[in-house]
């Protein structure tokens, strides 16, 4: 893939004060960013480097993913995140997974990959090919809630609801790992999810209740 060469020297003020100064890499050679690379990249397809035998993905590439048990074909670039695929590239889109921080800080985009909780904003979609992805839509439905979802409703573990899908998925992962988590374990396993309305107390109760239900105990 080629990049448009950047002018070596730019207006100083521009270099320092433009909205995001386009420093490239850690090496200190402060070259500018390539602005039209996307246009070129999408013309290219996945190619195998004949010399190295290494598979190289470049530009628009069709990949097959397993989402909630269904095989889905989708066109992505190497840089496309799993979150972006779910929310904007799948047809129909799976918008239950939320974008909040887009930086791996908040947990609203949590999905399961290979059964483990991950931030879908920090996963390149191409790297989850062949690995099962489970999103919030892959658990219960409104008229057929999972034990976790049921417990969130019963304990008011939600207010505005924007963090809720992430919390539900993280809880499913936590309970897969710990069948009977104590209060500290619940806090530890959900520490990657943030809520702004302040529903944590309801969430903690919901997790405890769901774990009891899943163990076969009464509520």
């Amino acid at each position, binding site marked *: 893939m080629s990049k448009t060469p950047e002018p070596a020297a730019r207006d100083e003020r521009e270099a320092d004060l433009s909205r995001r100064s386009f420093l490239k890499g*850690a090496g200190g050679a402060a070259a500018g960013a390539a602005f039209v690379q996307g246009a070129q990249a999408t013309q290219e397809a996945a190619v195998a480097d004949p010399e190295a035998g290494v598979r190289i993905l470049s530009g628009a590439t069709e990949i097959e993913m397993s989402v909630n048990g269904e095989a889905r074909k989708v066109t992505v670039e190497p840089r496309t995140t799993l979150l972006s695929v779910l929310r904007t590239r799948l047809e129909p889109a799976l918008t239950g997974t939320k974008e909040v921080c887009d930086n791996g800080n908040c947990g609203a985009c949590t999905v399961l990959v290979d059964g483990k909780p991950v931030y879908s904003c920090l996963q390149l979609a191409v790297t989850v090919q062949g690995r099962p992805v489970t999103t919030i839509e892959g658990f219960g439905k409104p008229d057929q809630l999972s034990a976790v979802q049921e417990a969130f409703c019963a304990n008011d573990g939600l207010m505005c609801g924007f963090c809720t899908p992430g919390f539900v998925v993280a809880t499913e992962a936590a309970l897969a790992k710990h069948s009977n988590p104590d209060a500290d374990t619940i806090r530890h396993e959900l520490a990657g999810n943030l809520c702004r309305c302040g529903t944590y107390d309801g969430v903690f109760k919901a997790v405890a209740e769901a774990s009891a239900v899943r163990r076969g105990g009464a509520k």
Partner: protein
Amino acid sequence: MDSFSLSLPTSLDEAIARLPEDVFDSSVQLMAGGQDLLTELKGYLTAPDEVVSLGGVPGLDSIQPHTNGTIAIGALVTLDALEADGALPPALRAIVEAASSIASPQIRSVGTVGGNLNQRPRCWYYRHEAAPCLKKGGAVCFAKDGKNKYNAIFGGGPSYIVHPSDLAPALVALNADVLLTGPGGQRRMSLEDYYYLPREGPVAFETRRAANEVLTSVEVPVASPTTSSTYLKFKERSSYDWALSSVAMALDMEKGVVRSASIVLGGVAPKPWRARAAEALLVGKRMDEVDELAVAKAALEGAEPLSDNAYKVPLTEGLVRRAFRSLS
């Protein structure tokens, strides 16, 4: 994030062949779990033409005891695997505690040992794209006279970052080595030497890894059963944060006497900071005759705080005391 091509080598040799020779050539970047790299890409802190994913390289994801008395932890071992019961012997508890303290379950599911050791700093200026800081090729370390609450009190200058890894102090305290493989084969060095201070080398980087080398594993000597270790980390937000300060401590004690001690501080310097003067106050002493406060003071001796981070001195002293108490 800018576009890049992604190469998916299936062997270490293939991966290494794709890497540049020049350390200042950032056009190709390695990715393990990608949990740090993706934030760098999203923040436009780096914009490589090519990202080389190690995900398809076999043999890097296991924890294996060696006959030579070490345990090899592959670079692609995920952080949650270190947390798992029985993954490591009890004497290496500091590693487990460090792993467990990192970020969040979602990050630990994906983030790797290699990635954690090689992650880039969290300094607010380094991470803010608008700030053309020293580490990004600029002329100024803005933290020095700017908002430096989270920056270094030891080893600073000309850059004042702190190294963000939690595993690093724990592994240094347990005398781990790193194994690096490049075009010329494998080399080994102590993890302590793997990191360098900004004044000791190119300010843009933190480690001695050559651009075309891959960190393949960490080897930790299996400490004697009389050793106990701990990692105490202070996070401003307990739920999910990097260390404001941390202490890794390992003590080998026999009949109440300290045979060897290592104390390594995290979050206070551009590399894991070994507190040798404090260690010296412990070795040969009976635990009940140790002056815990003196050890703590010795650990922080020589600190040179910036305008907003003098608090790290008493805070870290406190952590040293707590770590010592938890091992006694």
